[in-house]
């Protein structure tokens, strides 16, 4: 098929606007989409130092490539090494390739270095002690804690994550189906709509980018991100919802974009400033007496 804007071969067909895009027009289209999201939701100002939470997966890498190409921000990679057996080796190798090819500086910190244990070791302890923590619940909480620490250490103004439109819409329906209203207000292009001392604000520049667009972008740039799945990745209810949403999008192109718009408006309308205090153990900001990270570490017996 030919590009809708020139005579070159198309690499992407956007059903929701019925346009075909060649490599050049596709990359311009995605960059423009990201820049519009940044400007519309005031995600970052020109010259700000943006730390990209770089997992070694396709979406965070696409986020890094696009922000670098937009050229308005200082870019720093932020990488956490959780310690997940062999799986992490592929990701580390890929991040090194990005560093080399893009000339990007990546700051790293590991779970072992900071918490004294790898994620694999923590999961084993939780299992032995019969604690109600899954690998993902430990990883999610500690990752957020540690990425905030690393971002402050590197003095970045914002942390950009690679969340795509499909991630956001899936989470929205997960919360909706479990009648969970509070987290709904935390979705949107900015995680934590309020600036809170001690927290580096997290932004999602790919908020309106489909994950197929994100994958096409990175492949069109000549990268082949690793396809290995995290051994802890749950493929249950969450993925049934995602598959159902994919099927719905197939018949109703643009469905995810409409829900994305709704989420962004919902967040602006219903946001509430949380009451923030200092964690009694680590002193980091939290809305509880003891932050979730310290609670997990204490129950695991790591503190």
């Amino acid at each position: 098929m030919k590009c809708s804007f020139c005579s070159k071969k198309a690499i992407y067909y956007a059903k929701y606007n019925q346009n075909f895009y060649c490599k050049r027009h596709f990359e311009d289209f995605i960059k423009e989409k990201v820049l519009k999201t940044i400007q519309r939701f005031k995600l970052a100002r020109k010259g700000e130092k943006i730390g990209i939470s770089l997992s070694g997966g396709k979406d965070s890498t696409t986020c890094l490539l696009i922000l670098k190409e937009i050229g308005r921000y200082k870019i720093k990679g932020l990488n956490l090494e959780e310690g997940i057996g062999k799986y992490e080796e592929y990701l580390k190798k890929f991040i090194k390739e990005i560093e080399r090819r893009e000339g990007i500086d990546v700051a790293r910190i590991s779970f072992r270095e900071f918490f004294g244990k790898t994620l694999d070791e923590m999961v084993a302890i939780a299992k032995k002690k019969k604690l109600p923590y899954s690998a993902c619940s430990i990883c999610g909480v500690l990752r957020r804690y540690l990425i905030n620490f690393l971002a402050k250490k590197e003095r970045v103004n914002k942390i950009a994550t690679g969340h795509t439109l499909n991630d956001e819409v899936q989470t929205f329906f997960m919360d909706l189906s479990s009648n969970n209203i509070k987290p709904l207000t935390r979705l949107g292009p900015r995680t934590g709509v309020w600036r809170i001392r001690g927290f580096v604000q997290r932004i999602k520049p790919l908020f309106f980018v489909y994950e197929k667009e994100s994958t096409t972008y990175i492949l069109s740039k000549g990268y082949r991100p690793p396809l290995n799945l995290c051994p802890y990745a749950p493929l249950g209810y969450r993925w049934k919802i995602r598959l159902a949403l994919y099927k719905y999008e197939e018949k109703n192109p643009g469905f995810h974009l409409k829900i994305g718009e709704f989420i962004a408006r919902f967040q602006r309308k219903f946001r509430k400033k949380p009451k923030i205090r200092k964690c009694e153990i680590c002193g980091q900001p939290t809305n509880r007496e003891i932050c979730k990270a310290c609670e997990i570490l204490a129950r695991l017996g790591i503190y």
Partner: protein
Amino acid sequence: MEIIELRERKVLKVKLDGRKKIGEVLKEIGILPSLYVILRNGKIITEEDVVEEEDKIELFPVTKFRLRYFL
């Protein structure tokens, strides 16, 4: 025609009668085209592109699904 799913390295053999859009071929074998970036001889094509019997197609997954979810 040979279709290779790149995560699981699974090879699917499809008999093509003439030329057909790759999106239609995938739907016929139960695969949603939007779940993959489609490559022909290592180059990205769209699901609207027409393929032939001798084409070698690779599917690069855009998400964490495994093939067994829909095959």
